[in-house]
């Protein structure tokens, strides 16, 4: 059994009158990959975004219930959201590197959080790029533009940027859906590597990706958590008929 990285209890998210997430309780194990699957509009991305309070910026969005990391509720007014997002990194669907050099993309976060020493920054840049298997590809052009990288490289750069501030949790919102199959395979390999150090939650439209990369899978439907179990169980013998129908492509 793995330790708990964090958990939600009766988490609901509203957009105005509409309830997008309905009292969902999930426990996320430490250093494992949890995949969220479900048809468009099922609430999986909303749920993911609420885990580092990205929904704060959406007008009319309201959260009820608990999201607890190390005993503390992240929605407590005393929470420092900047610190929270340092601890819980986010990788988006489309690679979104800053219009800066490769080096500066990585150094930005640590510098923002107070690392000034050049040697320290160099080390962080190198180790972050090594962890994302990008170092050998870019070490000779660290000060070249990040935008000159391929899409797959840009996405790995964004992951390197997330881990440069030493988070414990990584949230990924369809991190490979804009990439070609080879780049996708690299991202998936990377996820398998990263889970040694991080707890990962990934939203994916590609069920086979969920089956390949995750330890546990959560299936959402219209804001409800329908089933949450070991991925192997979910894809060979799900308990719920709706899960079976969805992953077998009968609807969705």
């Amino acid at each position, binding site marked *: 059994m793995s330790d708990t990285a964090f958990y939600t209890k009766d988490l609901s998210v509203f957009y105005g009158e509409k309830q997008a997430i309905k009292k969902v309780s999930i426990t996320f194990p430490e250093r494992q990959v949890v995949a969220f699957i479900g048809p468009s509009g099922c609430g999986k991305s909303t749920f993911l975004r609420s885990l580092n309070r990205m929904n704060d910026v959406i007008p009319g969005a309201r959260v009820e219930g608990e999201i607890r990391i190390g005993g503390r509720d992240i929605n407590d007014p005393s929470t420092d959201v900047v610190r929270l997002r340092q601890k819980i990194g986010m990788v988006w669907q489309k690679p979104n590197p800053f219009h800066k050099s490769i080096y500066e993309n990585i150094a930005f976060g640590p510098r923002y959080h107070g690392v000034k020493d050049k040697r320290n920054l160099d080390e962080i840049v190198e180790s972050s790029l090594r962890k994302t298997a990008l170092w050998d590809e870019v070490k000779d052009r660290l000060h070249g533009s990040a935008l000159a990288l391929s899409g797959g490289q840009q996405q790995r750069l964004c992951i390197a940027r997330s881990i440069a501030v030493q988070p414990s949790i990584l949230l990924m919102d369809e991190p490979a859906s804009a990439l070609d199959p080879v780049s996708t395979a690299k991202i998936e390999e990377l996820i398998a590597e990263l889970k040694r150090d991080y707890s990962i939650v990934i939203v994916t439209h590609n069920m086979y990706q969920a*089956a390949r990369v995750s330890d546990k899978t959560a299936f959402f439907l219209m804001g409800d958590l329908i089933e949450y179990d070991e991925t192997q169980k979910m*894809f*060979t013998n799900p308990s719920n008929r709706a899960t079976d129908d969805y*992953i*077998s*492509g*009968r609807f969705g």
Partner: protein
Amino acid sequence: MVVRKELDDGLKQIQDWLGEMGGRVERALRESMTALTNLDMNLARKVLADDLRLNQIEEQIDEAAARLIATQQPVAKDLRRILAGITIASDLERMGDLSVDVAKAAIRLEGQQLVKPLIDLPRMADIVRGMIAESIRAYNEENVDLALKMAKDDDEVDALCGTVFRDLAAIMAGDSGTIGQAMLLSFTARYIERIADHATNIGESVVYLATGKRPELN
């Protein structure tokens, strides 16, 4: 999503092939037993010739299953249906081979008189043919109750097999000249009993298909 035609067609094809295999195995057992009872050499040789098609269908099922897994990424019940299909095809192919063994026993007895009229052996074969038909029906209907019934029928077949062994042992004890034939008939009882075991395996595969769990029925 909801592009399942290729997968659904493939699953249907496998199901049809399994149905054909079941029908052929049932016939092979019926004909081999008739060939033995009547020492009908032509019928015995027909069973041998017909078995080729069974082997061929098993290969077709394996190929179709591999293609569906490689190209359609089946999961959950679709995946279990394919895995169960491969296992069931393998059981049916073995059942065909065992029917061939019965037919070969008939061929080895060519020109001999039977040491006794065959009564319990055909009874065993009748029960086992019923099991074959029901195992295929259980698969088609995903009928767990019917699948579990295989274990009960199998016990009955085992009991009859024991009776056949004892009768033949008594005949051998009374007349050592009957040993060769009586041994052969004992083997035949064993072949039929093995076919029943394979039918019971099919029952297990049906339970796996329906529930995701494999019971031990044998």
